[in-house]
Every structure is written in structure tokens, then in C-alpha cells.
């Protein structure tokens, strides 16, 4: 097993799945010769040629819309949206078509596209290059939402996404692309979707986190006997693992980078309150981004939840 970063891991996974399944094709802006602006598709163009690695015109609805057509025809398209901030013009294609093709045709057609996109802040980028609006997609039935938090989960989850029957929005935490190196299993390695992962067991508090925030959460909780859950699939999310942990700890903090209001944290909190309130020894708490437009680099460190803010919340909930 080699030590690789997330970009390399995603890149290898794509290459392996393209090798395995001739129907897998990649499309998006600059994914070809340029290998993607983050190099996630590096070398695929050279290896699989322009028919399977398509540099597209600059049109996000076009990328997702043609991917849908390809999927209907029998391909397995992996569409890259260059930054999550540019997915909004493709939302109509995702919501009105990809998510509905199966139900609209009562099962005759399916639409197993994967829409990959880097998300989240912390890379000192300009406007709309730091979005984390995963909750929008979690609200839409028919779409799955998946987020890895490191090189190994990136491989396991992308492999599964590429073998899924349903459309998947696959969010890649930009800040972590090159930050973490870890051992990634070689060969076939698939992590089941809709299953969370317990990163660290603990008794005093459950912290639920994902993607960009996981690594910070783990650090922030080092001093505590915290159980840390990496949600991995955000929709549909793994209630079972959460409930089991809540029953054990009685305290829950949810951490996400997205704005608080109507973020996925709200749904998790509401679900726990509805179904596991008797186990709670404190209110479910959230550490999140603020309800403002993600600021430019000069202020982004104040926007993003970081360890101090998380630790404060842990203290608060433990005192409760």
C-alpha cells in the first residue's frame, strides 16, 4: 500500500474503474489534456483517449445534461463541475431529470451519473470557489450525496459511486486534496454507500462530521473521550450508526462547513431529537459556517469552523 494524497487516490480510482468498465467516461471543463484544474483526471486523457475523457465546452447544464443522455444510452458518465459554485446552473438537470428518470419511467430508465465537484473553503480562493451547499442536494429525493474525508475513503466511496445505480453528487473537499497522505488499499476497494464510519470510539460525546471538516474535528476532539462519526454518505444518511452512538454518549455535536440555516446538521439534529430524544443528556449542538456568503480569503479563516470553536462547543456540551 502506498502513501498517497486524495488527488492521487481519486485519480487512481478513476483509472482503475475506467480500465475495468469500458462504459465509464469522464467529461468536464479542462479534464482532458490539462488533467483537471486540480489534476484529479491527470493522465486519463493520454491513457483512454478523447472519446472517454472529454474536454467540454464551458457549460455546466450542458455537462450534466449530456451526461444524462449518455447514461440513458448505457454509458457510465463521470461529470466534473470545476467548482461547486458552478453547479447551480446544472441543478435543474440534476433535480428535474437525473433524480427523476427512474421514477418518471417507472423503472424502465435509470440515470447512474456521477457528478464530481470540489467543494469547501480554505484554499484562499475567490468568490464561488468555496461553496459547501451539500444540503441542497440532500433535500432532493432521487439523488445520493457522497463526501470522502481523506485519500482512503475517497477511493472506497468513489469506487462505489462509480458502480451505483442512482445519480450521485460526489463532493471532494478541496482543502484536503493535497493535505493528507495516507495508505490507500490497492486493487478493488469499495466502501458501501449510506453507511457511516466510526473514526474513533468514545463515550462522552458523539461528533458527526464529514468531508472537509473531519480532519479538524478529529484534532479538536483529541483531548476528549469523543466518538467521531464520518458520515461519508450525506443522502441517504446512516441513521442507525448515529442512533447507536447517541444511545451510548447522550451528547451530539454536528460539524459542518456550510451555512447553519437549513444545513444538513439541522436534519440530523431534528432526526435525533425526534427519534432518540430520551437518550439525550444535552441538546444537539452545531458548529457550522455562518449564515453569510462565504467570505473572500481575508476573512475566510473566521468563517470556517476550526479547532478552537469546536473545542469550545465540546466543553459546552460536556458541561451541560
Amino acid at each position: 500500500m502506498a502513501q498517497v494524497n486524495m488527488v492521487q487516490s481519486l485519480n487512481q480510482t478513476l483509472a482503475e474503474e475506467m480500465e475495468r468498465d469500458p462504459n465509464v467516461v469522464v467529461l468536464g471543463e479542462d479534464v482532458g489534456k490539462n488533467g483537471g484544474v486540480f489534476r484529479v483526471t491527470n493522465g486519463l486523457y493520454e491513457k483512454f483517449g478523447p472519446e472517454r475523457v472529454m474536454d467540454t465546452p464551458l457549460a455546466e447544464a450542458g455537462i450534466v445534461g449530456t451526461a444524462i443522455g449518455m447514461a440513458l444510452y448505457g454509458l457510465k458518465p463521470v461529470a466534473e463541475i470545476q467548482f461547486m459554485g458552478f453547479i447551480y446552473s446544472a441543478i435543474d438537470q440534476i433535480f428535474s431529470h437525473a433524480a427523476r428518470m427512474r421514477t418518471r419511467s417507472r423503472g424502465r430508465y435509470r440515470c447512474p451519473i456521477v457528478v464530481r465537484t470540489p467543494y469547501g473553503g480554505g484554499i484562499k480562493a475567490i468568490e464561488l470557489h468555496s461553496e459547501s451547499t451539500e444540503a441542497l442536494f440532500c433535500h432532493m429525493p432521487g439523488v445520493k450525496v457522497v463526501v470522502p474525508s481523506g485519500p482512503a475513503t475517497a477511493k472506497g466511496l468513489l469506487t462505489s459511486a462509480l458502480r451505483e445505480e442512482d445519480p450521485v453528487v460526489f463532493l471532494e473537499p478541496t482543502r484536503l486534496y493535497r493535505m493528507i497522505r495516507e495508505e490507500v488499499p490497492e486493487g478493488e476497494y469499495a466502501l458501501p454507500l449510506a453507511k457511516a464510519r466510526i473514526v474513533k470510539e468514545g463515550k462522552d460525546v458523539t461528533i458527526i462530521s464529514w468531508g472537509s471538516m473531519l480532519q479538524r474535528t478529529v484534532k479538536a476532539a483529541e483531548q476528549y473521550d469523543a466518538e467521531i462519526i464520518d458520515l461519508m454518505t450525506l443522502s441517504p444518511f446512516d441513521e442507525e450508526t448515529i442512533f447507536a452512538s447517541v444511545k451510548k454518549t447522550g451528547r451530539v455535536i454536528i460539524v459542518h462547513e456550510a451555512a447553519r440555516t437549513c444545513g444538513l446538521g439541522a436534519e440530523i439534529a431534528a432526526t435525533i431529537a425526534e427519534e432518540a430524544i430520551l437518550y439525550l443528556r444535552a441538546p444537539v449542538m452545531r458548529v457550522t459556517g455562518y449564515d453569510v456568503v462565504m467570505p473572500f480569503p481575508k476573512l475566510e479563516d473566521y468563517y470556517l469552523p476550526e479547532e478552537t470553536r469546536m473545542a469550545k462547543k465540546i466543553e459546552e456540551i460536556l458541561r451541560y
Partner: protein
Amino acid sequence: MPEQVIESFEVERLRILNEKGEADSSLMPSFSPDEIKKMYGLLVLSRIFDERALSLQGEGRLGTYASFRGQEASQVGSALAFDPSDWIFPSYRESAVFISRGYPLDRLYQFWSGDERGMRVPDGLNILPISIPVSTHILHATGAAMAAKIKKEKTAAAAYFGDGATSKGDFHEGLNFAGVYNAPVVFICQNNQWAISLPRERQTASRTIAQKALAYGFAGIQVDGNDVFAVYKATKDALEKAKEGGGPTLIECYTYRMGHHTTADDSTRYRIAEEVESWKEKDPILRLARYMEKNGLLNEESKKSIAEEAGKKIDEAVSGAESMPPPDLEEMFTYTYHSLSHRERKEMREISDGPG
């Protein structure tokens, strides 16, 4: 080279059959008498389907319905040009395309009665469910055509849409991708002069829809959309070109929506009766009938028996549709994902605990 003309373009219009029922033999595709009779039969079947749908709707037996009266030649003529292996991406006004493709008539009525199961396309039939959001399915046709090319299969794809659909970004992106990838796709615009209450001249300032293809580096052609022969020929030519690697084509079928936009619409609010009236003489079925009568392919008697036969099929379809049992409540959940999510399972239990 200061002020220099660097490009020049032309847009053509095709018509084979005029309103008197006279065909231009130099352009006429070689149809056998049976083929022409089949065309006529489908035109009539479609018309009766449409009329029945309107009356069923009036009786509360169907939901809101979109009539295609006046556009039969655009739909039947083009639909007949496809091979079974070609892929069709229709909009909501294309019942006659479904009918020409051999789609079960009862399922069409079932769909319009508000039942998703009507769009369970039979296996092997390469047509997509109706796309309700205008224009957005154009991209799917382009994508399917790109896929056919990648898979090196000699199939083409086609999208049907209206004049209104050409204003939306998806039209633009769909045609642009098609041009760039030289995809085997045919874009069939039924320019029926109206998008609900918006007349064609207010939809876009370009004088034709066909010329919009110039923006994407491929050919656009306008055809008389009430001339079933011209529509057939233009579509056939475009499909052949596509499959030979010649890339996409935009076909503007110049036609007219004789009815209201849908049964929920009242077109007297925004258009004058004279305009509708003036198109009656251009009726596509009338025109083909005249041609056939002139050429001994149709007489009063055969006309009647064709209509009667079609009527019977429609009767059967209606009773077929109306005798279908209502959908199970579970239907609502079954197709969201490949398999039920945890949450859906809980919700299904909630629902089956009792009504509401």
C-alpha cells in the same frame, strides 16, 4: 483587408406537397402506395386520439392535456423516418410521435389521466418519457448521440421541442455540444407559432428558427411542417447524414398549433380567430388526402373505413386505460432509488398505517 466579409450563409426552406395536394416529383422520396397509406392512417389515428383526449378531458376523465392538432404531419412525418434503433427524446406535445413509434395507446391515455405508469416505456422501444420542463431534454438527445458515437454504433438521436424551447439555455448548450462533438443527432423544432400566449416574433428576433443552427456550425433547414413528405424527407436526410458522420441538423417544422396550449388554456385571450382560421386550409391531413385522392390512393369509402378502424383502436385504448387498477401507494416510493432507503421504508410504514 480592412472591412472584409469572412463568412456567408444561407437558409433554405423545403416543401414537397402544396396545399392543393400537388407534389414536386423532383423532391418526392420514393414511397410505395402502402407507405403512403400507412402515413395517412397514422395521421388519422393521431387526430382521433387527440380529439378523444380533448373530449375525455372535458368529461373529467383525463387531466390537463396538450393537443397537437395541426402538427400531425410534423410528428408523423418525422417519426416515420427513424430506425427502431434510433433514440427519440420527446416533449409533452408529441403524442403523434409516440403513436407513430408504436407506443401503446392505452398507456398514453393513462399518462394523461395522471398516472406515471403510462410512461413506463415498453422494453425495446427507444423513446424517452415525455419531458415536462421545456427544452431541457435537448441535452439528453445530444448526450445519447455522443454515446452512440463513442460506442461506435450507427444510431442517431433526436429531440422534439417547440419554438419556445429555442429560447432556453439548454437548447443552446445542447446544440453547441452537438456541433463540437459532431454528434449524430437531429433537432426537430415544431415551430407552431406560439408558446402559450407568446407569438413566435416575440420569442426571438431571428426571422427563422432554422438559422439558429449557424451559431453552432451546422446546417439548419426550414420545412413546411404541414407537408408530411417534406418533413419525412428532411428528417430522413438528416438522420442519414448523422449516421454517416456528417453531424447534427436543426429542422424547423413550420406549422401551427390549432388548439389551445392545453385544456387549461384559453387562447382567445391572446390570439385572433382569423389567424387560426387561415391555417385550416393548410391542414396536413387534408393536404395528404388531396394528394392521395388525386393519385387514386384514397376515396370516400376507404377514408371512412380508415377513420372507423382508428376510432375502434381509440375506443379500445380508452377502455384499456380506464380499466387499469389504481397505482399502489407503494409506487410512490419504489422508484426513487434503485432500492428503498432506510427513511423511505419508515415513511412507507407510516403511510400504510392508514390513510393520511
